[in-house]
């Protein structure tokens, strides 16, 4: 290839339950993410967007399997490796250190009986071997970086607001300076003003650390704010992919257009239109027909 290998490349990834391998939950998904860029995966519930993200982390549940396809992660030290083929031990070295993830619901993903400082420090000790004063200093620096006073390191998650908890999650995820950050609806549970702050924070961190970001959302407003590239998924397949400008201003696939039409605008100028599935092929089990 003449161009440089991207940071992450999904090639023809298909996911199905182990018990019924013919039922594809994610069907032939391919896209790539470059360092310093954000790719948004957009879709409704059940479109396979979260499964796709989990497969990048090697975190698919026991009942699921990666049928076919490669998840190529380009790492400076070890070169390009297929995450799907790595052992659990090798995966643990990557998770948290090279690829980190932020989950949707900060209350359920933080441990309520440990201080947030301890939880941020866990991956620093595991991956970088930090201890004692150096660890404390690094935790304080991370908290300050996400906009929480470092004195809150001794607080428990229930003593923080929803926005602060999500900031703690972000501090945890960026602790080891990962190359790739996966954010699964990180702002869905938050108020708009807090959401705006968190999006800004993620965007700044991405630029400062030259991270690649895989951002999962169902909100086109968020896409418009944060994305470089957009991938639209429907029933396990990619129906459209391209740059933000391309997908948002000139959507090609009827599903993308339908999905955009049901997003309310702040001006109240356009009429809301629920999705009309008339364009779907008669037999829904068929491929939907991607536009690329």
């Amino acid at each position, binding site marked *: 290839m003449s161009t440089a290998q991207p940071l992450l490349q999904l090639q023809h990834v298909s996911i199905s339950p182990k018990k019924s391998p013919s039922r594809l939950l994610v069907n032939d998904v391919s896209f790539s993410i470059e360092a310093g860029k954000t790719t948004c995966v957009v879709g*409704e*519930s059940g479109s396979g967007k979260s499964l796709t993200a989990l497969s990048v982390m090697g975190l698919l549940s026991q009942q699921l399997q990666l049928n076919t396809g490669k998840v190529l992660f380009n790492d400076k030290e070890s070169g390009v490796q297929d995450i799907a083929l790595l052992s659990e031990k090798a995966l643990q070295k990557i998770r948290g250190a090279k690829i980190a993830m932020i989950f949707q619901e900060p209350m359920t993903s933080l441990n309520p009986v440990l201080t947030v400082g301890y939880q941020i420090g866990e991956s620093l000790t595991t991956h970088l071997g930090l201890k004692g004063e150096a660890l404390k200093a690094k935790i304080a620096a991370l908290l300050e970086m996400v906009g929480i006073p470092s004195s809150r390191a001794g607080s428990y998650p229930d003593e923080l607001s*929803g926005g602060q908890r999500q900031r703690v999650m972000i501090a945890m995820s960026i602790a080891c300076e990962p190359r790739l950050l996966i954010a699964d609806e990180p702002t869905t549970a938050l*108020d*708009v*003003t*807090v*959401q*705006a702050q968190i*999006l800004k924070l993620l965007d700044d961190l991405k630029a400062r650390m030259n991270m690649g970001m895989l951002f999962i959302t*169902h*909100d*086109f*407003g*968020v*896409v*418009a*704010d944060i994305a470089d590239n957009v991938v639209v998924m429907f029933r396990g397949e990619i129906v459209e992919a391209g740059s933000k400008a391309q997908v*948002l201003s000139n959507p090609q696939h009827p599903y993308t257009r*339908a*999905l955009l*039409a*049901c*997003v*309310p*605008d*702040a*001006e*109240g100028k356009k009429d*809301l*239109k*629920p*999705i009309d599935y008339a364009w779907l092929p008669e037999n829904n089990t068929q491929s939907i027909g991607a536009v690329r």
Partner: protein
Amino acid sequence: MSEYILEANHLTKTYTQRSGRFGFGKSSVKALNDVSIKLRTGKTLAVVGESGSGKSTLARCLLQLQSIDSGEVIFSGKDLAKLDAESLRSVRKDLQMVFQDPFASLNPRMRVGDLVGEGLLIHGLGNAAERQTKVIAMLNRVGLTEADMQKYPHEFSGGQRQRIGIARALVLQPKVVVCDEPVSALDVSIQAQILLLLKELQQEMALSYIFISHDLRVVRHIADDIVVMHQGQVVEQGKVADIYEQPQHTYTQNLLAAIPGKKVVNG
């Protein structure tokens, strides 16, 4: 018909918490601090604000689901806060609520037919056959079928459950419906369906809505008037178009500026 169907004047509500060492201390939060709103007949009044602004407390206090400390809620010439339990119950037929979480607000052990018909039964409206006819008609209207009456809530998707919640509120043919974040738990595609359904039903049944929401994009589409709440107080109120185009209060301006994708949507 008078211009305003529901009026709330100078509502206050204070929550007291035990605090301090061994809970001997007390701290109080003013959830509602001198809040006054007016709902125009046949219109939609949106109440917006962040979590903790008191908007859900307001909704519950309007329906007397929570007692208020002081103030009055006037509905058809009566102050709801002063009614005894018996007369309040008869008024409740006209005041219904659609809840936020369609997963938590439906009793999982009741069939949909019983859930929707429960209000009719409680208010003693019609005999069994008449009630059944009404329930079926209402279910059909919100896009469900007669066969769904025998099913349990867990057999439905989030959007369908919200339709059940709407049917349950509207089968009594209320005059005022308080919708507490009715679409915030739903996907954007389902959200559009439910918003349109609410709008259509408003036309057909001459309903007045109080619409609690934190999503200003949704509010723009459904509301006629708007009340902006912050820390238990109303900071701004008026017609939707006016507030969106010329927000006076800094807090409203901040809220509007935080709408994601504003640049693109406006462009």
